């Protein structure tokens, strides 16, 4: 399972100045209250806490202050081959900057080594606009100057994509629920203490804090306890709004299941409406709740409010 989101971040006057510099192939430092120059410039002085307002353009050369060898790079890192991360003190700066150094092996880098920036041709105003290389390496192209982007405006917004991969394991209770779905069954579990039936089953009864154990097969028919009409489009939406997402209390269950209500105009969906599960064709089933396409009206009379008022 991949969880990903592109965060849009405003930069402010200090980080914006620094990132604008990178876009224009210039390293910009900030002067701290004690006179030292820091790269990247912090927004506030780390000791005196004053706003950092004085900026210094620095050369794109520096010295390795510390380094490590990334023998097994992970996704998103500057190289997909082994490389070095280093703390690099840019010439004219007093504090080191974390960045990547492109060398072939750990034998090709050492503390004290001189390095210089290798700038990307297309630069957006990001710390990824450059990597460092040993100063002894000849660069194919002369160092760029001026704006690398289509505009010379200050970099006021950046997009920082984040994407994380997970192996999502189901709990034993969730496993039996999903295996049941693959057989066209809806399985819940009953709490041994309060006798409530939970669907999907959980690791523990949220009322009593004890594991639920007894398996209960539930009806495919239930009652809409509450619902909302989705009018807002969002990323990944599969159905054109407006449509209804509802809590369906299956007959025999004590907790409602969230699902879609279709085959009826959205404005006609109501609390107490009786609905039944509409399953996809059997050859499309997997171990997923998506085996149930949606819930649709049964045509029965609405349930009395009293029959579900404790499940709202």
């Amino acid at each position, binding site marked *: 399972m991949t969880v990903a989101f592109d965060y849009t971040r405003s930069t402010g006057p200090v980080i914006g100045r620094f990132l604008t510099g990178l876009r224009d192939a210039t390293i910009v430092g900030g002067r701290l209250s004690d006179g030292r120059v820091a790269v990247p410039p912090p927004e506030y002085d*780390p000791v005196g806490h004053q706003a950092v307002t004085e900026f210094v353009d620095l050369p794109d050369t520096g010295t390795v202050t510390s380094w490590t060898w990334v023998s097994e790079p992970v996704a998103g890192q500057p190289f997909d081959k082994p490389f070095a991360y280093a703390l690099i003190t840019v010439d004219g700066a007093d504090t080191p900057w*974390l960045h990547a150094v492109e060398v072939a092996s750990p034998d090709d880098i050492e503390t004290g080594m001189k390095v210089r920036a290798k700038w990307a041709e297309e630069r957006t105003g990001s710390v990824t606009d450059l990597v460092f290389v040993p100063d002894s390496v000849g660069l194919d192209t002369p160092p760029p100057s001026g704006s690398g982007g289509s505009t010379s405006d200050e970099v006021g917004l950046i997009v920082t994509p984040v994407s994380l991969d997970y192996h999502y394991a189901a709990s034993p209770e969730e496993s039996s629920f999903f295996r049941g779905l693959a057989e066209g069954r809806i399985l819940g579990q009953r709490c041994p203490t309060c006798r409530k039936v939970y669907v999907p089953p959980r690791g523990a009864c949220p009322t009593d*804090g004890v594991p639920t154990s007894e398996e209960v097969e539930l009806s495919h028919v239930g009652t809409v306890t509450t619902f909302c009409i989705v009018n807002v489009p969002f990323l990944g939406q599969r159905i054109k709004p407006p449509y209804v997402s509802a809590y369906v209390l299956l007959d025999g269950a004590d907790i409602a299941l969230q699902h879609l209500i279709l085959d009826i105009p959205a404005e006609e969906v109501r609390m107490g409406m009786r609905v039944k599960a509409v399953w996809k064709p059997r050859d499309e089933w997997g171990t997923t709740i998506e085996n149930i396409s949606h819930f649709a009206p049964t045509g029965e009379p609405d349930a009395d409010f009293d029959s579900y008022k404790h499940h709202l």
Partner: protein
Amino acid sequence: MRDVAVVGFAQRQMKDFDGSPSMAELLVPILAECYEQTGWAKKDIGFWCSGSSDYLAGRSFSFVSAIDAIGVLPPVNESHVEMDAAWALYEAWIKIQTGEVDTALVFGFGKASAGVLRRTLTLQLDPYTMTPLWPDTVSLAALQARLGLDAGLWDESAMAEVVNRSLTDAEKNEYAVRAGGSSVDELLARPMFADPLRKHDCAPVTDGAAAIVLAAGDRAREANQRPAWITGIAHSSDGLHLGTRDLTVSGSAARAAAAVGGTEGVQVAELHAPFSHQELVLRSALGLGEDVAISPSGGALAANPMFSAGAIRIGEAARRIWDGSADKVLGHATSGPALQQNLVCVMEAQENGRAK
């Protein structure tokens, strides 16, 4: 100040938890163990506080699913921190100090194996100047280790000695996911992983959970024959930017130790050092001499479950008071890259360190 003690502690640590990241099914037996130790039931707990992170679980509101393990009808007084449960313990300690409650149960949990931990932890860094480069936690610790090596503050043998002692002690810890000492020479002969760190210098990726029970005054004496009284607890943080702090020392750990009145007389210190050289940094920052037993549980190099490893250090230290093997102990927790945040909890056999 009210006298507050650690009176209960339970833990589970494993390489790979086969279950959901909300870990409710792992927490149920842990909470049951706390009830058994104290003789209490759910109704005896005045305040609940947990530590966990949705970034680790890969799902939203995972801490809400986890409180199923408590059973929350009627509703309970509950809070959560996106930090190690050691900081949840700090919140609970303050809650008891306010007088609103007399008892608290704190717990932490995390299934680090669900993702790539060293990558997931990149999201705790400055999102403008660091995260786009995806510097992993192991690399950041390695940069810190080399700064100390280059400066002559420690050497590879000293780091290997920490590893050898930890993995030897871990042989006696049923929850260790890595154990078995060898020798400094044998350890130094192993290959580099993140030069200058070898794999054994880095805490193993660990799944797990833990819970600690706190109680004030008579409630503590009722629950435990020899409570571990908290006579000092403090935490502190260093700045966000790696470049503007000296990584070879830990200013925040030193400030936390100063805030609890120093560490003189401490016999056992459980230190949360996920990398071997960080134990050396912490011993110096906390002023722990050669006579202090360091992390007899095996420490974080033997098992390091995210969001509970710090609390486990406090629990392991408290146990030395309970069993009478020590009169003054220290539990330490860290969070953030390269020891950015540190918490110190000093516990003694006597309330406020007073002789009876």
